[in-house]
């Protein structure tokens, strides 16, 4: 782990304003910010560890525990709220058995609620990893999640989805 951290550090300069991009890169690599990674970042940027912790906990992007293989984000923005996004979130929550911010026991999914992904015209929307699913309905949740459980490729998943949409 240390070695990779070193590699990440080598791409940044030792200044305070490098801190957030640095933490973003660490999270990109490891999926979350471990205490020892934050300590190392503090030494690198020459600030107290408490400063790093303060910054990291301020921003919603940073996570402090390992995340699931797939990140499910259910949009709860204004348009999605008006179009029934809460119902979609409820369904995902009950199927995964976790609340937003938690990871399933088998580490396959982490559930997040987001305030807006800017796909308001497709409301209600849901994002799994980097795939956006628009005009969501609670009935489609099982099929979408199953696709990721089996770990199919993105294209296959999209095809499955559109076939289902057409048969409805």
């Amino acid at each position: 782990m240390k070695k990779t951290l070193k590699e990440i550090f080598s791409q940044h300069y030792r200044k305070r304003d490098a801190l957030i991009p640095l933490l973003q890169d660490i999270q990109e690599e490891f999926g979350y910010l471990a205490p020892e990674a934050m300590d190392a970042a503090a030494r690198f940027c020459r600030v107290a560890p408490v400063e790093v912790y303060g910054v990291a906990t301020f921003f919603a992007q940073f996570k402090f525990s390992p995340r699931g293989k797939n990140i499910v984000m259910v949009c709860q923005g204004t348009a999605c709220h008006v179009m029934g996004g809460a119902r979609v979130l409820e369904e995902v929550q009950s199927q995964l058995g976790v609340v937003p911010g938690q990871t399933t026991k088998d580490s396959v999914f982490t559930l997040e609620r987001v305030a807006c992904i800017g796909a308001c015209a497709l409301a209600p929307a849901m994002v799994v990893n980097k795939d956006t699913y628009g005009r969501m309905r609670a009935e489609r949740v099982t099929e979408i999640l199953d696709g990721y459980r089996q770990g199919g490729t993105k294209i296959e998943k999209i095809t499955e989805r559109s076939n289902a949409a057409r048969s409805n």
Partner: protein
Amino acid sequence: MRPEAIKISPGYERQLLICRGTGCESQRANEIFVALQEGLAKAGLADTVEVKFTGCHGLCQMGPTVIVDPQGTFYCLVKPEDVPEIIEVDLKGGGRVERLLFMDPKKKERVFTYREMKYFAPQRRIVLRNCGFINPEDLDDYLQVGGYEGLKKAFAIGPTKVIDEMKRSGLRGRGGAGFPTGLKWEFCHNSKGDQKYIICNADEGDPGAFMDRAVLEGDPHSVLEGMAIAGYAIGATKAYVYVRAEYPLAHERTLVAIKQATARGYLGKNILGSGFDFEIKVKLGAGAFVCGEETALMGSIEGKRGMPMPRPPFPAVKGVFAKPTNINNVETLANIPVIITNGGDWFASVGTEKSKGSKVFALAGKINYSGLVEIPMGTPLRQIIEEIGGGIPNKRKFKAAQTGGPSGGCIPAEHFDIPMDYENLTNVGSIMGSGGLIVTDETTCMVDMAKFFLGFTQKESCGKCVPCRLGTKNMLETLTSISKGTATMADLDQLVELAQDVKAGSLCGLGQTAPNPVQSSIRYFRDEYEAHILRKECPARVCVDLIKFEVNEDQCTKCGSCFKACPTQAVTWKKKETARIEKDKCIKCRSCILACRFHAID
């Protein structure tokens, strides 16, 4: 509405424009793009028909879209499977694929080209001038439509005249506050400092607004050019684009554009031989709504917690790294190149007396065509909703339009004809804000809506000021008890009072505007609040604690829609019989209410 300068590339007879914004991309636009390229090669048309991908056209509802030029044929809701037919019938046969053409909702006729579409015709595209028509990842496409001409002209006329043009244009900040841009530039220009900064605020956190994302995805160079002009006018040589982490595509295309512009000498050292240096870096936001506030944003760039600071000193005097800084929003910056090219008077000829130019609205919610629309300031709300947006679906009635997101307010039906500009919106108790426009109908509960927005601001409050941190929490608790039917009229009075205190006692825009949705919904829909409190009833049937989940026999048409919609088989129904809901099986998910078109479930 499209730039005249866009021509089909030399050597080609026709071109296909495929939208690959976030909306269309999620509906398999990438596959369509590949299928078209392959299909044309197979048909032997690859030498005469050019396939180009573009940013967002605005009509996200009907995506993915394909435009065939020079005819301007507009195909919508295209699937990869439709590609062979488009090639066969249109490109080879010279006809049109009728079933993929846009259907005019009123006349029930197919519309051939986008020029004839009601959605596009009333729009005045200044900010979105190139979006949907140029390849955002190709600098030459941008140059072809007059790109970087504004910057060249700025170099020719000098910084003072650039600021004069900006002041003459009357452009006001499009991020929400509406401060005159020319004046802002002048402050920063006059401010003394060895190093000055330009920041582009692309931290579009307002739920329900997505124009900044579309501009960065569809026409990133216009924003970079706007920044370079601002830098030249003010004397700044370094700049940041602060973009949300939730917008990966916008981030990527901005990076590509910076790289291209630098390689060709439109950014970097000694730009176009003028002696002016300008370097742009991209900072990725880390997920905090409050960072849309300029002082908090600067804190975040410096690597600190994104908390607002008291002003003065204003950023123009002491901004990022304690240097004079000018912050403009994406939409504001995208206006600048054309203002400088065409002159401030040209821009000022569009719009109303105090609100010049055009405004992009993100139209969403209970509307037939959601997407981005750019209209001249002063366009009536009715025209935006009924003509451009195609009205409200399912023959439901307009209730209110929410503008300005969680900082804004609602515009009720009595103000349906309001000309949309800064002053008029403020007068009715809402704000222009960043341009979110959420349409609601009679199935939207205003108490729930206020609760939703306050829940958002409460979560996003940075916690610095007590009135905002505790006040929004307290207000949210009161709204929650109203929605559960446990509040009293005294609670409502206290809510009104607390709203004023939070406004008065908060440091930054987040806290100062957080009570707006509550105040404006109480102003126009007090009867709904009273129905919740006094009659324990939610007229829109949204607040689940107040719904009985019983079928009203007088209104039930025995259609069985609720029966089909119920996920737990709690509804019993047979043909020609009134439906019944079994309470012990019902999970109160509201699926039946959403399915019922006759308001028959109480």
